[in-house]
């Protein structure tokens, strides 16, 4: 399925346009569906164990309830005029040619049922407006195609009404969960966070041991005793980061980067073992109840530890959830120091320190890397950094430029608000959807191939645990190596000069070939 291997691109070789529109191939991805959640995974997070007998009535009832409680869903289901603006905007459509992966067609899978049961035209003239009864075939199609949406919101940028397929696919997943047809990957993980505090099921003892090992590694390498504190009461800052940061490559190098930044400025900070996860898969399945419950863990950890601020590590959807939903669902956060934004992103924190000149870098330590930056969708189109619109694009780039001499952006129509998803977001980062993930990565990978050819780019930096894991998995399919993806704070870590640090002979760390596979579930 992969035509291109261009690790060393031939000069002048034509790389296809990342946004090239494929011919329609109806049914091309009809076979794609993730594993069903088991009864115990379903019940652990408040859903029926398996498909209930009266699923049809309950599904329709749930749809009505969701529409009545979400202006977004109601407006989005009503307003579409089928203009076609979104039809070529989804990376899964571009990568597969399956017409049901066109955003409007994906929405229509739910909209046709909404029309049938909730609109005048659909009740009386279903054939005219494309309304359809809810049948088992329709439910199966929902399961297939609403798990081919990474909720990246690219379509919503281009829709004249801002219709966001993410909202529609979240609603569809919520309906399916409510009748007992949930997805294993997401629901099992949510259960793990409820039980252990993180997606990986990592328990406190192992967590502490991992962090201690990391401290030793950093000291061996730099000669500086950089700490990774766990559950330290009275710390100023609670760092909430995706649990992949504790285990996977290149995530872990990002964590080391945060720790070095905190260390260098003498910040008092801690990680919590109770809320050791920034990811919130409750968002992916459209479940506000579950999303809220996961957030209340973060609130409780902040209260118990008595911190003054909460900072989130590199994670795309976690930042959306934290930035936009945390205060609404788990707030108000009056007990925190309101002079700081609640919450704050680690990139905002590091950027502020760079602006103040508080960090020292030797950019040449990253000279073996020619870098581009992947705007993660939930950061780009669903949140912000800094105090200006678009700060989410400028701040990570400013950090990278401060620590790296060779930075090149991918083509303009594939970055910033137009960024292409990595192909693994929205609860799809599971091996049972690997074909979809590889095909969905195609637009992003072609854009990277272009900068590889034009500027000799060797690495792509990301600020999202899902993007990092996805890239590590799919990049070999497109002619790159699995460790050609780096964390933004890994670049910071490479270039930062700590006080008392060893000098010389360590500009190149040759590790990290074998780590990425460990964290397939690491949100």
């Amino acid at each position, binding site marked *: 399925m992969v035509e291109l291997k261009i690790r060393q691109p031939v000069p002048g070789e034509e790389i296809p346009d990342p946004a090239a529109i494929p*011919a*329609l191939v109806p049914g091309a991805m009809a076979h794609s569906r993730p594993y069903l959640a088991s009864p115990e995974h379903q019940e652990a997070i*408040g859903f029926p164990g398996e498909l209930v007998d009266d699923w049809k009535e309950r599904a329709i009832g749930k749809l009505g309830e969701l529409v*009545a*409680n979400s*202006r*977004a869903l109601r*407006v*989005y289901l*009503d*307003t*579409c*005029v*089928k*203009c*076609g*603006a979104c*039809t070529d*905007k989804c990376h899964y459509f571009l990568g597969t040619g399956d*017409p049901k992966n066109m955003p*409007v*067609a994906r929405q*229509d899978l739910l909209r046709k049922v909404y029309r049938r049961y909730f*609109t*005048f035209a659909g009740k009386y003239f279903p054939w*005219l*407006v*494309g309304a359809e009864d809810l049948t088992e075939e329709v439910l199966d199609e929902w399961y297939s195609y609403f798990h081919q949406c990474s909720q990246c*919101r690219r379509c*919503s*940028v*281009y*829709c*004249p*009404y*801002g*219709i966001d397929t993410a*909202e529609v696919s979240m609603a569809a997943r919520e309906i399916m969960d409510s009748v007992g047809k949930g997805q294993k990957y997401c629901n099992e993980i949510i259960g793990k966070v*409820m039980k252990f505090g993180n997606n990986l099921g990592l328990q406190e003892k192992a967590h502490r041991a991992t962090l201690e090992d990391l401290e030793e590694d950093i000291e061996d390498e730099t000669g500086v005793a950089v700490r990774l504190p766990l559950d330290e009461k009275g710390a100023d800052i609670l760092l909430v980061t995706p649990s992949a940061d504790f285990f996977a490559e290149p995530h872990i190098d990002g964590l080391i980067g945060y720790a070095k930044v905190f260390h260098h400025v003498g910040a008092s900070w801690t990680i919590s073992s109770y809320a050791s996860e920034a990811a919130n898969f409750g968002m992916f399945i459209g479940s*506000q*109840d579950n999303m*809220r419950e*996961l957030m*209340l*863990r973060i*609130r409780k950890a902040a209260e118990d530890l008595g911190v003054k601020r909460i900072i989130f590590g590199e994670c795309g959807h976690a930042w959306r959830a934290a*930035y*936009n939903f945390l*205060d*609404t*669902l788990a*707030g*108000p956060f009056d007990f925190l120091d309101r002079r700081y*934004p609640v919450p704050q992103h680690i990139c905002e924190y590091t950027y502020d320190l760079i602006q103040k000149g508080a960090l020292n870098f030797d950019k040449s330590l990253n000279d073996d890397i020619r870098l581009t930056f992947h705007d993660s969708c939930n950061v*780009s*189109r*669903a949140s912000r950094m800094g105090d200006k*619109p678009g700060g*989410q694009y400028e701040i990570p780039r400013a950090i990278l430029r401060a620590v790296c001499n060779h930075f090149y952006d991918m083509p303009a129509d594939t970055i910033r*608000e137009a960024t292409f998803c990595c192909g693994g977001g929205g609860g799809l980062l599971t091996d049972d959807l690997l074909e979809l993930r590889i095909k969905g990565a195609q637009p992003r990978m072609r854009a990277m191939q272009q900068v590889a050819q034009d500027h000799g780019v060797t690495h792509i930096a990301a600020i999202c645990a899902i993007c990092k894991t996805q890239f590590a998995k799919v990049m070999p399919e497109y002619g790159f190596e699995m460790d050609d993806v780096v964390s933004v704070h890994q670049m910071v870590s490479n270039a930062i000069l700590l006080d008392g640090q060893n000098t010389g002979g360590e500009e190149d760390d040759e590790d990290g070939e074998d780590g990425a596979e460990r964290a397939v579930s690491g949100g």
Partner: protein
Amino acid sequence: MLTSLYAVLFYGATMVLVAGIAYRVWQYSTTPAPLKIPTTPAPLTRGGVAVRLAREVVLFESLFKANKWIWLFGWVFHAGLLLVLMRHLRYFTEPVWGWVVLMQPAGLYASFAMVAGLLGLWARRIFVPRIRYISAPSDHLMLALLIAIGVSGLAMRYVARTDIVAVKAFFLGLIYFDWQPLPADPVLLIHLTLVVALMVIFPVSKLLHGPGLFFSPSRNQPDDARERRHVAPSLTTPLRAEAGAKR
């Protein structure tokens, strides 16, 4: 007889149109928006949001980013329709407002633009496989209806002229409840019948997409989640007691 029939049709259609739009707006405005979901980068203030919405309404900014052809045909159609509707005000006002008199020629050119835009949109719906795939019969029929209205209107100007003085008397009569005879002119009756059909279909179809934009949370919310706590009506009471309580 004919006059009474059309009088009743227009009263009925007007009621359906006004009540239908009012109902939809009421429904949208009373449905809660529980979470902050602006598509970013988004304005930080309500004033900024007003500017963003104005750019969408006047320029179709997002559509322009998406697809230049759809934007061109869609914008030309809507702008043409607006001018045509303004031109039609002369049939409902006496004396006719000065600016309506002045813009009469513009309204005439606009009617050609409107039909051209509609034909362009329909051609895309037929010839672009992606858009053909997503089209239901009603999507084609609505374009046909609008084109038929435009063409029958143009026909009365250029092919079979109708007694517009009498038509105006009929509509003023409707407004002042003093019915005047409607000319029994086939093209006029076709035009008016299609307009009645449009007025009735409008509130129960996708044609009512204008209000949707103003109520679309991805467009109408300011990006201020960290500055102002967004409290949703449906979430003021806790959904569940405490984190982990049920375990």
